[in-house]
């Protein structure tokens, strides 16, 4: 067992998987020689050579498009998009090829590829470095979308993503990259894609969140002890496909539901979760299933970002509102 942060967990999972499977190829802008702008791929080129870990030219469409070609011919590409805000030039390849190749070719060609990207805000960054657009990917059939919140899940989910026979969008909350460390197993292990995790059990309300919102929810829950409110906190971990069962079981128990996310509100992942709760647990509802999210604006630059960010105080307030509904 080693004590690692999220960056180190990513690095370890890549390192170990590349050791066991020499069809895994890691690449992206600056991913090779210097190991990526966040050092997630540090040491991989040194260890596995330039053929298995390399710097690409500045071409997101090329990175994903070539990854598709590699995957079709039996390699396992793990491609890095430097920031999620720069994935748009590759949207065409992701949404109309990676997601569809299996269906289009009736299973003859598949794209077992991982597309990693630093995700989310609250790091006082420049424009295009703070968005959360998981909902865009999740709307596309054929893609899986994963967002870990801690080093244990990060390693386990990355390993699952690499082993997954379909394309996985792997979103890494950059706010959590080095935020804390955790003791995690040294060996290869999997955290299943598509399974949420109940982080703590409670009676009064179900709260679903993911990524960097998890620690914020935990802080809010601690604050809520004095109000005598107990919370079922669920780390969704996989945005698509959603673990409807875990969520609906919880809501049937608590009767109240809140989803917390960083992304803007409208047409976000929160809306899908609310709809699922309506479909699966309507008759248990004691209050409107609700969401607490970013505002429907472009993420503000640093001097205004604090308004936008969901924090424990906002979460506590919203939970109390629902408890008192």
């Amino acid at each position, binding site marked *: 067992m080693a004590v690692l942060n999220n960056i180190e967990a990513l690095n370890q999972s890549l390192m170990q998987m590349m050791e066991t499977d020499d069809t895994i190829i890691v690449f992206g802008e600056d991913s090779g020689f210097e190991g990526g702008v966040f050092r997630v791929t540090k040491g991989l080129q040194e260890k596995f050579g330039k053929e298995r870990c390399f710097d690409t030219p500045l071409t997101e469409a090329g990175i994903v498009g070539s990854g598709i070609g590699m995957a079709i011919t039996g390699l396992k590409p793990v491609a890095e998009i430097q920031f999620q805000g720069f994935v748009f030039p590759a949207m065409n390849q992701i949404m109309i090829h990676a997601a569809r190749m299996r269906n289009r070719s009736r299973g003859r060609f598949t794209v077992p590829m991982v597309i990693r990207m630093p995700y989310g805000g609250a790091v006082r960054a420049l424009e295009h470095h703070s968005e959360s657009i998981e909902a865009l990917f999740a709307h596309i059939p054929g893609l899986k979308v994963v967002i870990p919140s801690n080093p244990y899940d990060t390693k386990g989910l990355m390993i699952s993503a690499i082993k997954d026979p379909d394309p996985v969008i792997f979103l890494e909350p950059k706010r959590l990259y080095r935020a804390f460390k955790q003791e995690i197993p040294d060996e290869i292990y999997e955290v299943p894609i598509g399974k949420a995790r109940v982080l703590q059990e409670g009676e009064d309300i179900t709260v679903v969140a993911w990524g960097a919102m998890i620690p914020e929810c935990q802080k809010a829950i601690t604050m809520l002890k004095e109000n005598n409110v107990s919370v079922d906190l669920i780390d969704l971990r996989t945005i698509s496909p959603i673990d409807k069962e875990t969520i609906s079981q919880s809501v049937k128990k608590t*009767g109240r539901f809140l989803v917390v996310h960083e992304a803007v509100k409208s047409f976000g992942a929160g809306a899908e979760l609310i709809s699922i709760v309506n479909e699966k647990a*309507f*008759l*248990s*509802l*004691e*209050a409107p299933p609700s969401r607490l999210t970013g505002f429907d604006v472009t993420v503000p630059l640093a001097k205004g970002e604090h308004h936008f960010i969901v924090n424990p105080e906002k979460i506590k307030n919203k939970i109390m509102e629902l408890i008192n509904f």
Partner: protein
Amino acid sequence: EKSEKPSLRKKVLATPVARKMAKDLGVDITLVKGSGTMGRVMKEDIKNFHSSDNKKK
């Protein structure tokens, strides 16, 4: 079929849980006077209605 619908289109404010409770207890929720904000029918209202209804019987 449609005949199962609550009587006379009278609309009440209530949570899904309260509505279910009414249904389970055989209470016509449209007859219950709500004590909540804007006349919302609370679970207590249904319980009270039900027990007073039972007493009457």
